């Protein structure tokens, strides 16, 4: 979403600036009555800062979600509490900087509660976590205001009050500033000796108590004076300063060898001081204070005040920056800045596109080389060209790998929101579920991460709703009261394996068969032919749901078939394993990226097709005698099992070469537990093909997912194996 640039508009229309300013003030406190009008709201944030702000905000909101849930479940861990507090604190600071008042107030309330937890004055409880999570949700909604620059009707007062209820139960946690203690000024002022300092200065300072930590300012004054000489008398005393939160007045007499000028200069460096007078004369800020060199210090020594800190030197040192810049130059100007760059995803996409083009060219070059190698007219330049092509190929491979690595995100970025989701769902269904996550550091292409999000949500909802039983059911089945949902991710053989596993009741194959027959999805004969194991795959059929009642979470008969479709869409495979009474495990196998697909190239008549390798289990060489017919459909025996065969030429309605029709190769592909052999004329080889969408002009072709340009410049269609299963009626 593009953000409106308010700056130019405001400059062009002064009245608009006033209006937005007025709205800003209103919006800061309570959401105004919108009356159907869209209210604009301006925050102090520029276009280039916005993505950083949002990404960082999301990160911290996620931390809040995560840790709050963990704290609710586990023993409270000091480090966790510290982290969650820090996140709330950081969000508060960020929202304060852009001037989002409601977000700041809400996080302040949250931070206060978490501070109480940190200091053990507030106990973690489910109602507390509920309120905190509610606050996180509201913050997420308010975040949208920053994106859209429009006021939403998100109300924070209820949550803020509820949070305050928790923190005010413990007065120690409320950060109300303690009232300023009565500081007695029992200082005997030494006789002012105009222009005759004698090394003795009497300093009086008025500190702005409206500002924060005025006591610290007093402390700064004290330290500055200690740095100049010896403090003879001081009010309030150091102990009083340390014990109080606000100090309005500071008085001290100091004996020093410094001039009046350097004393006043030292004092003027301290911020938050309204007024300073030395020896009864006001020191003018910014102006040169009056004064003459005082005589050397007279007899000082009152009670010695410990001065552990070295004297701050107000003089700018000349050498340090020079030395530093020399050092920086020696280090090649190395900066300590973050060595990461945030960049637009679109740039990565276009980079990936370019790499794709490069791969296509490399493949082309390799082909030209092999053609030339067959020709006899070779000479030295062929050798050199060949070497160059090999080198180019290697570099292209590395480049592709690097670009892909840049696009990788840890799968944890998807997984991390599930504990919260499961908690909320479990609460709704009266279930108790622990979420276990493994392999969250496994990296995936970011486009893939977007694609698997919805399927995972479906699978998890399904497990919570149908898989895991209620505590009572579990106990009576001899299982632990709390169910466990395990999410894992790992790399395996250039693929990504994701699993969603629960220890629930499992899936009843017989019930699925019955249901499928009842709904007319399969015939009773077909049902009878299915084993329990095969029946489980029925649940990926559209229109099948065994749920007793329709819930708003899952069970509308849509869901698993959509999951299946979505995963197939990204050339992935989903499989399910289940044991009645013990649990269910969904396994999703995905390619590493969507942009480049390692494929098996095959020829059918004059056309080349690419079959994604992730789908291919094996390749068979078939003689005519290997093929038998069952109900006029070709099959073959593969290790004692019947394997259906499908003529690709048939499927794509290509001219059949009846004359020398012979089965040569069958590429065995799988979908779930189903396998089929695709009969092709010949095998071309393996190639990493760069996926090109077919485009709206051609549209969807059943059985074809997209196209690829091959090394020889030919276009190959990429086979959509699942579509093919449907087309072939398997």
């Amino acid at each position, binding site marked *: 979403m593009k953000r409106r640039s308010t700056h130019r508009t405001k400059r062009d229309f002064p009245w608009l600036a006033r209006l937005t300013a007025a709205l800003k003030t209103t919006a800061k406190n309570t959401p105004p009555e919108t009356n159907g009008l869209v209210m604009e709201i301006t925050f102090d944030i520029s276009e280039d800062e916005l993505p950083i702000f949002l990404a960082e905000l999301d990160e911290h909101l996620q931390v809040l979600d995560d840790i709050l849930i963990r704290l609710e479940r586990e023993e409270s861990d000091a480090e966790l509490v510290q982290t969650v507090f820090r996140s709330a604190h950081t969000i508060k600071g960020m929202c304060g900087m852009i001037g989002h008042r409601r977000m700041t107030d809400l996080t302040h309330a949250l931070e206060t509660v978490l501070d109480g937890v940190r200091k053990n004055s507030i106990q973690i409880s489910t109602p507390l976590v509920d309120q905190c999570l509610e606050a996180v949700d509201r913050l997420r909604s308010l975040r949208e205001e920053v994106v859209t620059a429009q006021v939403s009707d998100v109300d924070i007062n209820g949550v803020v009050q509820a949070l305050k209820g928790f923190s005010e139960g413990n007065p120690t946690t409320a950060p109300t500033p303690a009232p300023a203690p009565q500081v007695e000024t029992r200082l005997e002022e030494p006789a002012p000796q105009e222009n005759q300092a004698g090394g003795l200065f009497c300093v009086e300072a008025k500190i702005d108590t409206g500002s924060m930590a005025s006591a610290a300012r007093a402390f700064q004054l004290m330290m500055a004076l200690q740095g100049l000489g010896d403090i003879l008398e001081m009010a309030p005393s150091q102990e009083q300063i340390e014990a109080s939160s606000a100090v309005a007045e500071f008085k001290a007499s100091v004996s020093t060898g410094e001039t009046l000028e350097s004393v006043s200069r030292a004092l003027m460096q301290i911020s938050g001081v309204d007024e300073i007078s030395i020896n009864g004369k006001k020191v003018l800020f910014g102006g040169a204070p009056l004064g003459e060199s005082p005589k050397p210090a007279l007899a000082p020594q009152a009670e010695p005040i410990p001065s552990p800190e070295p004297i701050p030197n107000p003089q700018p040192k000349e050498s340090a*920056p020079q030395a530093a810049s020399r050092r920086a130059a020696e280090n090649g100007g190395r900066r300590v800045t973050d060595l990461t760059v945030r960049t637009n995803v679109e740039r990565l996409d276009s980079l990936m596109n370019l790499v794709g083009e490069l791969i296509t060219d490399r493949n082309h070059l390799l082909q030209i080389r092999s053609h030339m190698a067959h020709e006899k007219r070779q000479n030295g330049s062929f050798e050199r060209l060949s070497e160059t092509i090999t080198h180019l190929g290697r570099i292209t491979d590395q480049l592709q790998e690097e670009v892909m690595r840049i696009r990788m995100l840890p799968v944890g970025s998807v997984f991390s929101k599930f504990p919260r989701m499961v908690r909320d769902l479990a609460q709704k269904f009266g279930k108790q579920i622990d979420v276990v996550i493994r392999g969250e550091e496994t990296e995936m292409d970011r486009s893939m991460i977007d694609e698997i999000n919805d399927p995972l949500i479906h699978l998890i909802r399904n497990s919570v709703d149908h898989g895991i039983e209620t505590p009572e059911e579990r106990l009576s089945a001899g299982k632990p009261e709390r169910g466990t949902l395990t999410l894992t991710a790992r790399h395996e053989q250039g693929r990504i394996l994701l699993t969603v596993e629960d220890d629930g009741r499992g899936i009843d194959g017989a019930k699925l068969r019955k249901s499928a027959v009842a709904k007319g999805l399969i015939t009773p004969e077909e049902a009878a032919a299915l084993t329990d194991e095969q029946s489980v795959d029925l649940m990926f059929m559209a229109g099948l749901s065994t749920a007793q009642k329709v819930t708003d979470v899952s069970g509308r008969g849509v869901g698993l078939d959509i999951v299946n479709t979505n995963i197939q869409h990204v050339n992935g495979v989903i499989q399910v394993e289940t044991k009645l009474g013990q649990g269910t495990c969904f396994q999703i196998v995905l390619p590493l990226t969507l942009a480049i697909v390692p494929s098996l190239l095959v020829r059918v008549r004059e056309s080349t097709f690419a079959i994604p390798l992730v789908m291919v289990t094996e390749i068979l060489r078939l003689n005519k005698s290997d093929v038998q017919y069952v109900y006029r459909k070709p099959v073959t025996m593969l290790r004692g099992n019947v394997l259906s065969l499908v003529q690709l030429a048939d499927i794509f309605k290509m001219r059949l070469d009846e004359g020398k029709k012979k089965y040569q190769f069958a590429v065995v592909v799988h979908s779930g537990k189903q396998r089929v052999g695709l009969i092709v004329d010949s095998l071309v080889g393996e190639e990493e093909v760069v996926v090109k969408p077919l485009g709206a002009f051609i549209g969807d072709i059943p059985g074809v997912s997209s196209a690829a340009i091959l090394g020889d410049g030919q276009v190959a269609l990429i086979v959509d194996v699942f579509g093919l299963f449907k087309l072939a009626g398997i």
Partner: protein
Amino acid sequence: MAKVLIVDDAEFLRVRLTKMLNTDGYEVFQAENGLKAVAAYKELHPDVVLMDVTMPEMDGLTALREIVGFDPKARVVMLTALGQESVVLEAVKSGARDFVVKPFEHERVMKAITKLLS
């Protein structure tokens, strides 16, 4: 050109401050936690350090003490939030030369820096 080291775990704040300081002609360096700040200080000897308090790895107070221990003349300005009064006093005791309360105005930060550099 004076060097300023910005230490804050929030990237947004680092970016915001960097912009402010760049506009005013300072050379800006960043560190995202206390640990990195100490290392950066030793390497770069910045003229001023703007130091957040609440950070992972090493908090601002600890980093302040380490920096002042290494260079007693270090000019460290603490970036604090409301509710951190006690920390501020602690910081001043440990050698912080000033503190700025978040959310801060451009002017306030600049004043703190120019004051320390004068």
